């Protein structure tokens, strides 16, 4: 089953994937290829189809149409072999609270043919001090690290991590990022879903932005941001009288405009050229600025640019 190094099969190849739940087309034709050793992000708002896609890849959900090949294997023919070689963390699993950290890892450890030593895994996820603590006594971040340990203990080639940092405090998220970066350094492939843009930018080699069950943009974080045609974003809000977007696109340095209600977002190449012109324009139109901020463009801005919505709006 080992692929020849001369012809590395992709870690994950998805072709024409579709899945419908009643009236909802959760996945509407997704194609993706993830190379070995890559950290790949599926980015999108809640309900975009990320979890459905990843659960089809994990063999937990059956697709209506399309092909999924994992490490060159398919669930139809090699389900057992795939389960030996992937490590997953689901969005809402609650591990048994009555067991200790070590007992929980030992349980998952026993399921795999090829296993990493339990002590090594506990050290890797930095739960050494909590080794004998009950799962019920762990913090959210510690529980997530334990979930990763349960995936790591089978020495997987490919991780599927479904929103591993949702609901965690910033420090716990950082710790988890370091862990995932470590997995990647060991040559493991990682497919991660998130609705945190900074997470995708920090961790992922490539990102697919998913919306309404489709991939609407694909590339490295840098490439996606470059799609904006500008590296900066100017956001402002107006009090009272609004101006039309078409007036703003003509301002110097502006490459894109989006507006939701009284809030505007400009994609901008040179902030120092745009801002004076913008202020002058608004003054002439007698509009009052309630708020003005600028930042370097992020994947969030890409999402807004592509869909006109913020990620959190769903």
């Amino acid at each position, binding site marked *: *089953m*080992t*692929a020849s*190094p001369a012809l*590395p*099969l992709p870690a994950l190849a998805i072709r024409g994937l579709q899945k419908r739940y009643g009236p909802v087309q959760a996945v509407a034709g997704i194609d993706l290829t993830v*190379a*070995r*050793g*890559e950290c790949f992000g599926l980015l999108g708002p809640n309900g975009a189809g990320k979890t459905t896609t990843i659960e089809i890849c*994990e*063999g*937990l959900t059956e697709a209506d149409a399309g092909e999924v090949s994992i*490490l060159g294997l398919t669930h139809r023919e090699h389900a*057992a072999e795939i*389960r*030996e*070689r*992937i490590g*997953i963390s*689901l969005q*809402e*699993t*609650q*591990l*048994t609270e*009555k*067991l200790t950290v070590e*007992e929980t890892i*030992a*349980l*998952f*450890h*026993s*399921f*795999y*043919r*090829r*296993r990493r030593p339990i002590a090594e895994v506990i050290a890797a996820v930095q739960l050494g001090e909590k080794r004998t603590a009950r799962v019920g006594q762990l913090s959210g971040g510690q529980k997530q690290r334990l979930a990763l340990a*349960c995936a790591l203990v*089978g020495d997987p*080639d490919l991780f599927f991590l479904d929103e591993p940092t949702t609901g965690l405090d910033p420090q716990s998220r950082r710790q988890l990022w370091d862990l995932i970066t470590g997995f990647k350094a*060991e*040559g*493991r492939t990682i497919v991660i879903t998130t609705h945190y843009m900074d997470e995708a930018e920090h961790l992922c080699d490539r990102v697919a932005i998913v919306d309404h069950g489709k991939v609407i943009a694909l590339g490295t974080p840098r490439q996606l941001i470059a799609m904006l045609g500008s590296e900066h974003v100017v956001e402002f809000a107006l009090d009272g009288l609004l101006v039309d977007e078409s007036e703003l696109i003509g301002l110097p340095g502006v490459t894109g405009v989006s507006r939701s209600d009284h809030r505007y977002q400009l994609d901008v190449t040179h902030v120092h050229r745009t801002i004076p012109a913008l202020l002058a324009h608004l003054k002439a139109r007698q509009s009052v600025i309630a708020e003005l901020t600028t930042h370097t463009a992020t994947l969030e801005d890409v999402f807004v640019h592509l869909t006109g919505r913020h990620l959190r709006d769903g």
Partner: protein
Amino acid sequence: MADARPRGEDTPRTWREYPIVQLTLARYREFYREPEAMFWTFVFPLLMAAGLGVAFRSRPPEVIPIALVQELAGTSAAATALSKERQLDLRTVSDSTGRRLLRTGKVALLVVPTDSQAVEFRFDNTRPEAVTARRIVDDALQRGRGRTDPVAVGEDIVTDRGSRYIDFLVPGLLGMNLMSSSMWGIGFSVVDQRRKRLLKRFVATPMSRPQYLASFVLARLSLLVIEVAFLVGMGALVFDVPVRGSLLALGVVSLLGTLAFGGLGLLVAARPKTVEAASGMMNFSMLPMWVLSGVFFSSSNFPDAIQPFIQALPLTALNDALRANMLEGAGFLQLAGELGIMAAWLLATFPIALKIFRWQ
């Protein structure tokens, strides 16, 4: 991008690293770290046996309170005759006090001498002890006036260990306890793990599904030893309930009973997504057995028409086998029928449970 990671050899296992061992250990830990589960399994049946044992204890025939009205002649002769009866608690009262005592149930019978040759019994003939009192008082008065009985009657009172109500009750409670702890113990944890999406997490690993289900039944077996030893031991120690059959046969009976209920518990827990739904199905499947399978009273009280159904129930088989072993010392040969019924329940339920099991 790194190349494919080379796949190494399978890691060798120690005995503790086999999934069935780890799964069973997990089940076992989940149980003994839950204090409530310990209470229901061990303390509850003992309290129940104690309560019922006290209520239905064997006791000397009760003493019945009666009253004699002392206003008229002939009272003293009657009083002498009645005071000799050990089953009667006699007091002599005025007519009005007597009527009040009878009305409030303080005495079962009021004896009212009407003249020197006649008495009247005043009593409620729907009260069993009043009827008994009437018979005893009548006999005592007639003998006191010189009646002789034509047939000589001797009495030999029997209270054998093994024939008392408590002897019937303890094996029944043991059987019921094995049923409840197997079904609830398995049903609740399965459904709870389904609700917490833990089952979903497990099926994404190479874990063997039959082994996962088997671990619940196996964990029950290790608890079974403690459970049976505890209840039979307390029964013998506290209530002097006999264990006349071989302990090996007792062990095999309990084991097969637990396996049968383990299979049934898995079947009931195979589909429900919530603990509430599972509880309803648990009670629904256990209720007929509580009533019909001879826990508190013999199942032979039910009509012949439904006896085949009753005899096919796993709890009937378990209770009958436990009683035959403990009270009559029955060996494997005599228990073959009951053991067969329990084995059939396991073989029927486990594969169906595995087949229809909802993993997500």
